[in-house]
């Protein structure tokens, strides 16, 4: 047991209080009729006798004060204790498939570790992170069993490293449909330009063509139209070649997660906010707006001002900038991702003792009152 606030133990000085109360000469005065008062001389109880009265009550009161001091010092216990075994089941699995001892607590491998009796949470759980969390929260002695389908997302780049050996069970269930990798996927760019900037839009249309050729002839490549034309359904990015402010619907589209390439003289939609990251070639500034991204060209789109337009790799470079960084590969073959041991154990969360202490103190207080007020004593102190 440790103390979060050891100075609270200074309240132990309060132990002197019940001692003083019991040392104080309690002038217990039982009214007594006594007619022979003439021959009686007032004699007080001798002072020098150092006698503590009612040891049991005193002990109770000392305990009470000490307990209060301890409460002030906020004691807590280190070292988690818990069930001897834990079972974690991936939400993609059917609990009926899992063989387990009904006594053992079973939980979904999901944030918060809801019990298995509840409904299955969403399946896209960060498996590795949750494993580390469970490893950290559980006591060192708790045996951990994890049930997983054969293929799941949510792993890190390497095998998880935990502080304990994990019973790693893999069930050959139909894995969650893994999103396909998108190296050669078509990339659709919608171009919206001011009526007098059709010549600038040419460059981007050329880039569209280049991407379409790379992806296949029937791949969508997006369109090009003057500003105000509604956006087509499936586009990955919008190029906005018009001076002035961005229209509100475009801003809403960006904030919902879209990517926009805007002209050099478009007025920046946000003032102050956002973090700009400069490309090494210094022709593009990127910032975030809501869930989406805004990339602003520095030079105007014609070859005299922007020689890189003439480079053969311009479409590839543009697409690389327009495409968000692909998500880290998290889909893994579960059997190959069995956790290794050897990680440092987590410091378990301290468990506060206050509730127990408060309950004990209340009990002590009730006991003390009962003793103090019990009729066999002469008078309540």
């Amino acid at each position, binding site marked *: 047991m440790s103390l979060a606030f050891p100075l609270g133990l200074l309240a132990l000085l309060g132990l002197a209080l019940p001692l003083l109360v019991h040392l104080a000469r309690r002038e217990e005065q*039982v009214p007594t009729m006594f007619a*022979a*008062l003439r021959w009686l001389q007032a*004699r007080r109880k001798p002072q020098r006798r150092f006698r503590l009265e009612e040891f049991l009550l005193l002990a109770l009161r000392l305990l009470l004060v000490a307990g209060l001091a301890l409460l002030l010092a906020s004691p807590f216990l280190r070292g988690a204790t818990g069930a001897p075994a834990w079972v974690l089941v991936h939400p993609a699995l059917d609990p009926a498939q899992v063989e387990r001892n009904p006594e053992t607590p079973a939980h979904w491998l999901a944030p918060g570790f809801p019990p298995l009796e509840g409904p299955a949470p969403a399946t896209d759980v960060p498996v590795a992170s949750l494993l580390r969390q469970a490893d950290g929260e559980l006591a060192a002695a708790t045996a951990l069993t994890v049930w997983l389908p054969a293929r799941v997302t949510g792993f890190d780049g390497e095998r998880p490293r935990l502080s304990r050996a994990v019973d790693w069970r893999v069930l050959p269930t139909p894995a969650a449909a893994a999103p396909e990798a998108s190296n050669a996927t078509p990339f659709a760019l919608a171009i919206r330009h001011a009526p007098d900037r059709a010549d600038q839009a040419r460059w981007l249309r050329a880039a569209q063509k280049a991407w379409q050729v790379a992806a296949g002839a029937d791949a969508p490549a997006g369109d090009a139209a003057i500003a105000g034309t509604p956006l087509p359904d499936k586009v990955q990015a919008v190029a906005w070649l018009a001076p002035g402010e961005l229209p509100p619907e475009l801003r809403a589209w960006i904030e919902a997660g879209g990517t926009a390439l805007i002209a050099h003289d478009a007025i920046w939609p946000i003032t102050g906010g956002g973090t700009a990251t400069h490309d090494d070639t210094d022709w593009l500034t990127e910032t975030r707006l809501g869930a989406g991204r805004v990339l602003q060209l520095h030079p105007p789109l014609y070859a005299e001002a922007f020689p890189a337009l003439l480079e053969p790799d311009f479409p590839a470079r543009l697409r690389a900038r327009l495409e968000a960084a692909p998500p880290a590969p998290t889909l893994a073959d579960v059997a190959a991702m069995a956790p290794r041991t050897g990680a440092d154990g987590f410091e378990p969360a301290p468990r506060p003792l206050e509730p127990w202490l408060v309950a004990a103190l209340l009990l002590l207080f009730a006991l003390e009152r009962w003793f103090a007020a019990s009729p066999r004593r002469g008078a309540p102190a």
Partner: protein
Amino acid sequence: MSGPDFIPAAVRARLKDLRLAGRRAAGGHGFGQHRSRSRGAGLEFAQYRAYEPGDELRQIDWKLYARSDRFFVRESERDSPLTAWVLVDATASMAQGDAARPGWTRLDAARALAACVFELALRQGDRFGLAAISGDGLQLVPPGAGPRHRDRCLLELQGLRARGDWPDETRLRPLWERIAAGQLVLLLGDDFDEGAVVLMEKLSAARREVLNIQLLTAEERDFPFRGGHRFRDPESDVELIGDGVAARADFLARFGAAREALQARLAASGVRRVEYFLDQPLDAPLRRLLAPQAAERA
């Protein structure tokens, strides 16, 4: 309180061999069991006196006539009934009892003792009266005899309440009018009031035979108090705070000395005094008080 006449059955049984008798008190007129100053026919010789006309001839002591050639009448003592007064102190201090036996106060003991005395007197055909002295003054039942008179006295006792201080002498003046010389007076009280002691001394000096049973509680004898107490005198309402254990030795010494001094003082004025503690059997003080002296017994 046991029964309407205050006397427990066991005590009543032990009263049988007790006899109410005064040493100085003498019987009045009439026939009874006590020596009296009235002379007449009897067994015990009293005196010779000169013949007077009207005396019966058979009373003349003819042998003495033969020796002295004069008529003398032989007189004997006549046994006469006694008049016994029971004076009950009913001041507030009489309400005190022992914690060990709640409900048994000095006044209760005084009632029972008075009832015992009435019972003895009734058995012997003596006359008895009751005087209760409390803060309210004097309550008197004039002397009389017979069971109905006893019941009257018991009824008076029944209504007795302990309150007030000892009244001053002027209020006790009816006592002097009622209690004639030669009568027996038994005072039942705690004798803590100087007035009571003075009254006994004066009565004794005025040729009344005065007996006294001092009623004391067992607490006054043993002082068993422990811890702090607030002692309160019921009559003066003086309070005194003290620790029982610490005050015990001193109190016992002083109180014992006071009791001895009282004994000596009363003995000097011819008052016979016995102590009765509330935890003793009721007949013990009567037995000590009424026991025939060795000379009488012989």
